[in-house]
C-alpha cells in the first residue's frame, strides 16, 4: 500500500515535470512559428516593395502594346509608329502579344509612359455595358481567383458563345484598371486601337481616374487594317504636327473615314482632353 502510494507520488512528480517540459516545448514552438510568420510576412512586403515598378527617370517614354500581333501582325505599323514616336524624341518600348498578361497590365501605370498605344483585342458585354481588354493568358482554374470572383477580371473569347475547344482568355475591365493596377499613369495619353474602346465610357473613366490625361478610341467595332491606318495618321497629327487631341482625331477621321465594315468612328474622352497637345504632354511630364 505504502509502496503503491510512493510509486504513485513519484509518478505524479515525474508527470508534473514532464508536463512542464511539454508546455515549455509548446511555448517555444508557438513562439518560433510566430517569429517565422512575422519573418515571412515582412519578407513578402520587403520583396514586393523592392520589386515595385517605379517611374523611370527617362522622360518621353511610349509603349506599343501589340496584343494584335498574335492574330493580326503588322510589322509596317510597328515600324512606322515607332519611327514617328522616335522622331518626336520618345523612347519606345514594344510589347508583343505574348507579353500582354494580367500582370503586365497591372504594372503598366507605374512604368511612366507618356503615350500608351494599346493595339489590343477588346471584348464586349452589351448587357452589362462593359468592355474588357484581352490578355494572352489562357484561363486557368487556379489563377486570379479573387479577381475573377470580385469581377475585376473577365473571361474573354473571340466568338460568342465560344466554340468547343476554343480557350477563354483573362481580360481586364474598368474595375481592374481602377483597383488592381499599381501606381498611377503620368498624365498619359492612351490610344486604344481595338474595338469598342469608347463604346461605353467606363473604361475611359477608369484610365482617367488612374492618372491618364486623354483616352482615344473607337466607338464600335473596327477592322485591323483601318485602325492601323487611322492610328498612324493620328500619331502624325498628334506627335509630329503637335495638334491638340480633338483636332488630331478630327483630322484623322476626315482622312480615313469611318471603318468601311463596321462604320465605327474614332473619338476621345474627356472633352477637355481635346485641347491637349503633344507639347502639353511633354511639358506636363517635365514639370511633373
Amino acid at each position, binding site marked *: 500500500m505504502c509502496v503503491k502510494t510512493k510509486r504513485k507520488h513519484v509518478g505524479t512528480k515525474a508527470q508534473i515535470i514532464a508536463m512542464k517540459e511539454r508546455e515549455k516545448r509548446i511555448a517555444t514552438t508557438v513562439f518560433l512559428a510566430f517569429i517565422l510568420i512575422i519573418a515571412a510576412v515582412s519578407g513578402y512586403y520587403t520583396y514586393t516593395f523592392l520589386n515595385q515598378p517605379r517611374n523611370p527617370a527617362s522622360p518621353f517614354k511610349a509603349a506599343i502594346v501589340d496584343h*494584335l500581333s498574335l*492574330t*493580326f501582325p503588322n510589322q509596317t505599323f510597328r515600324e512606322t509608329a515607332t519611327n514617328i514616336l522616335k522622331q518626336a524624341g520618345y523612347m519606345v518600348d514594344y510589347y508583343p502579344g505574348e507579353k500582354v498578361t494580367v500582370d503586365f497590365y497591372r504594372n503598366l501605370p507605374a512604368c511612366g509612359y507618356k503615350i500608351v498605344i494599346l493595339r*489590343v*483585342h*477588346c*471584348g*464586349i*458585354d452589351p448587357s*452589362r455595358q*462593359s*468592355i*474588357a481588354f*484581352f490578355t494572352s493568358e489562357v484561363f486557368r*482554374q487556379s489563377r486570379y*481567383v479573387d479577381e*475573377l*470572383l470580385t*469581377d475585376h*477580371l*473577365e*473571361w*474573354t*473569347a*473571340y*466568338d*460568342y*458563345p*465560344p466554340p468547343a475547344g476554343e480557350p*477563354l482568355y483573362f*481580360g481586364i*475591365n474598368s474595375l481592374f484598371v481602377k483597383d488592381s493596377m499599381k501606381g498611377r499613369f503620368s498624365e498619359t495619353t492612351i490610344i486604344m*486601337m*481595338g*474595338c*469598342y474602346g469608347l463604346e461605353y465610357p467606363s473604361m475611359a473613366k477608369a484610365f482617367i481616374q488612374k492618372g491618364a490625361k486623354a483616352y482615344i478610341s473607337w466607338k464600335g*467595332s*473596327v*477592322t*485591323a*487594317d483601318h*485602325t492601323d491606318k487611322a492610328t498612324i495618321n493620328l500619331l502624325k497629327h498628334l506627335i509630329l504636327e503637335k495638334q491638340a487631341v480633338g483636332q488630331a482625331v478630327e483630322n484623322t477621321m476626315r482622312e480615313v473615314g469611318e471603318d468601311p*465594315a*463596321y462604320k465605327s468612328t474614332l473619338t476621345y474622352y474627356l472633352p477637355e482632353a481635346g485641347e491637349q497637345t503633344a507639347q502639353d504632354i511633354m511639358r506636363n511630364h517635365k514639370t511633373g
Partner: protein
Amino acid sequence: MGEELNTYGNTIENNVGAAAIFSWHSISFEAYARGVYFDVNSQDNHVNNNNIVGNSVYGLQNANIATTLNAENNYWGSGGVGTNKGKPGEGGNNGVNSNIHVDYTPWLVPGTEQETGTATGTGTAKFNSDTGAVSDPTPIGEATLPTAGKPARNFPHGFFSFYITGITPNAIVTVTISLPSAVPVGTQYWKYHASEGGWIQIPMGSDNGDNIITITLVDGGLGDDDGTANGVILDQGGPAPPPPAPAPTAPTARGVGGYIVPVNKLAILAPYLALVGLVGVVVSVVAVRKKRKN
C-alpha cells in the same frame, strides 16, 4: 375585266360588231334561270374564266344560231365523271342551249394542273389549287410592271397571272406552283397590286428549297386583283429567291473585337469547396474514431 356583274339575267341584245366580253365573273342567277342570254343579233362575244353555276335552265344561252359564242375556260360545276367531269350539263352542272353555238371546250375541272412557259424562258411552270380550278396561266415580263417600291430581288422566272374559279366567295385558296427549277429556302412571292398600294408580299407555305412552292390567296382579299369576293381570284405575281449570301469576309476585314463571357464563379470555386468538404470529412472521421477509442 374584273368588274362585278350587277344585272340580273344578263340578256345582251343588238350588239352587232361590238364584242361583249365577260371574263372572271360569277354568273349565278338561279331566279332567272339563265346565266347570260345572248339574243339573235349578238355576235363576237366572249365569256371566259367565269363561275357559271346555279342557273337551272342554262348557264349560257346563245340565241344567234348563225354564230358560235366563245365560252372556253369557264367553270360549270363539279358534276360529271371521267372525261366529262366538269362538263356543262353533266351531273347537275350548268348547261348551254347548244353545244354547236356555244364553244365551251375546254372547260375547267377542279384539281387539274395548268401550265405555261415562263417570261424569262427558264422553262414551264405548272399551277394547281386545293379548291376550285386554275385557269389561263400567262407569263408576264418583269419590265411590264411598275418599278416603284419593287423589292430589290431577282425574279428568275418572271411573273405569272392566272385565275382561280369554282370557289365560294371569300374562299382562302392554296395554290401550288411547280417552277422549272428549284428555288432556295427564303424565297418570297411578290406581286404588284395597285389597290393595295403597290408591291406586296403574298404569304408562302412550302418553301423548302425544291421547285414547288405554295402561296395563299383570298377571294376579294390579299392576292385577288379584282378585289371582290365573287368566287373568282385573279393573281399576278412571281417568286423571288433570297439575295445571295455575302461573300465570306476576308480575315483582315474581321473586327479586332471579341466578347466577354460570363464568369462561372461556381466552377472556379468548385475545387476549393471540394477541398473544404474533404477536410471536413477527414476531421469527422478522426473525431469519430477518437470517440470510439475513448
